[in-house]
C-alpha cells in the first residue's frame, strides 16, 4: 500500500496513522484507496483514523491499545481527546480544577 508520505503506519494492527509532516486544512490524503479531505490542519504527532472506528472500540497504536472511542470515528478523521478516552486515568486540560475531580 502506498501511504501518503505525511503519515506513518507504526504497526499493521493499528487503526490509526500518525502524522509526521503537517497536513494543511482542505488538503486531501489517500488512505486505503479512499481520498479524504482534511477539515482541519493535522499537526506532527497527531493521529487520524485508518478505518471507520465504532464507539467503544479500542484505539490501537504501535500494536497496543491506547484507549477507546467515545463516539463513532470516520475514516480519516482526527483521533484525539474529543473522541477517545483513557481506560486508566482521565487526561486533563488547562481548564481543569481540583473540584471537578
Amino acid at each position: 500500500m502506498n501511504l501518503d508520505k505525511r503519515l506513518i503506519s507504526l504497526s499493521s494492527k493499528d487503526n490509526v496513522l500518525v502524522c509526521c509532516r503537517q497536513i494543511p486544512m482542505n488538503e486531501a490524503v489517500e488512505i486505503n484507496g479512499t481520498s479524504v479531505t482534511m477539515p482541519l490542519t493535522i499537526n506532527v504527532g497527531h493521529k487520524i483514523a485508518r478505518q471507520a472506528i465504532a464507539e467503544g472500540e479500542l484505539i490501537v497504536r504501535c500494536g497496543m491499545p491506547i484507549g477507546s472511542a467515545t463516539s463513532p470515528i470516520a475514516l480519516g478523521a482526527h483521533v484525539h481527546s474529543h473522541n477517545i478516552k483513557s481506560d486508566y486515568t482521565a487526561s486533563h486540560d488547562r481548564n481543569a480544577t481540583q473540584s471537578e475531580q
Partner: protein
Amino acid sequence: MSNMIPAYLRQDGRKGIRNVIVVAYLVECAHHVARQIVTRANHPDIQLIGFPGCYPNDYALKIMKRLGTHPNVAGALLVSLGCESFNRKALREEIENSGRPVNNLIIQQTGGTRSTIDAGLEWVLETQASSAKQPTVDMNVDELVVATICGGSDGTSGISANPAVGRSFDKLLEQGATCIFEETGELIGCEQIMSERAITADLGKEITSAVNKAESYYSKMGYGSFAPGNADGGLSTIEEKSIGAYMKSGASPISGLIKPGDIPPKGGLYLMDVVPDGEPQFGFPNINDNAEIVEMIASGAHLTLFTTGRGSVVGSAISPVIKICGNPETFENLSEDMDINAGKIMLGEASLDSVGEEIYNKVIAVAKGEPSKSEALGHQEFILTYKQFEAIGPSCLPIR
C-alpha cells in the same frame, strides 16, 4: 577514537566525569545566602542544590547524602539558618566519611547574611581550586551510569527520540554500563510487557505491583502524569504516552527495581520506582521533570538522556543532561537547546539505529568533558521535596 574517559576517582571506588563543588541550603531560609555564594563564585563547577523544608524527612536526607557523595561531586558547602530540622550533622558526617572536603556554615552563628556569603565564597573558591588539581584516572564505559527521562512529550517522542535512546541503552548495556529508566506513573499499561523482561519472575511481580501502585496513587491525586502540552502534541491518553515512554528502555532484560537514592549494582538495566509508598501524604509523586532527574542523579547517574517532542530546555546541577528531540519542527525552533535531532527519523532521513549510535557517541563525548547544550547554557535546575518510601523488597535486586 578511544572510549577511555578521563575521570576523578573517589574513595568508594566510583569515578566521576565532572568535579563539582555543591553549595547546599538545608532550609529555604538559607537559600538566598547559598545562591549568592554560587552566583558570586560564577564557576561552572560550583553549583547550587538544596532542600526547602523545615520539617525532617528521611527521603530528603537520603537524597542529600547521595548527592553530597555523588561521583561527580568533589566537595560540599552546607548552608544552614541554624534552627531548621534538617539533620546537618548526619549529612556532614556522611560527606566527610567519603573523603570529601565539607563545611557547614550556620548563618545564625556566622554574623548574618553578608558574613556567611563572604565566608562561604572564600571556602568554595579555595576548595574548587584545590579539587581542580586532582589528577584524572581512566574510566571505562562499563563504569558509567546513564539515566533517561522524557519531558514535554508529544506524538513523535514514542516513535523517534524514545526508541532511539532505547537503542543507545542496548549498546551501553552490551558494554557493561548501568542504565536507569523511570516514572512508573508513565508506564501505566506497560506493566505486563515489562514484567516479562525481568530477569526473574519475582522481580516481574515487583514491577507489576510498582505500576499498580502508581496507577492507584495517581487516581487518588485526580490527575495522571499527563500535561496539557502532551495533548497539544497529539497524545490523547496516559496509555499512549506510556507506550512512548516505555520505548526509552530498549530491549535488554530488566535487572532490578530501585527507589530514589538506591545505588544499583554495577551493570544492567534498572527501573526506578518514583511513586511514594503508603497513602498520598505530600502531594504529587514528582512535581516536575527536574525532581525525577535529581532522583536518578542521587542513584549515581553520571548523565541523563532527556527526550522531548514539545521541547524542554532544562539541565541539572551535578550531572549533565543531553537533549534528544523527536519532533523535527521543534528541533528547528529550539536547535540552540537540542543536542540530537531524532526528528530525522520522522522524516525518513535517518534510522533508529543510526540515531541510537549518534546518542551513544554523544554520551561518550560528554562523559569525556564536552559540555552538553544545557550544560553550556548554564542550566542547573534542581528541586527536592517531601516524599516517603519503604525499602525495596529482596526480589527487587536478584543480582547484588
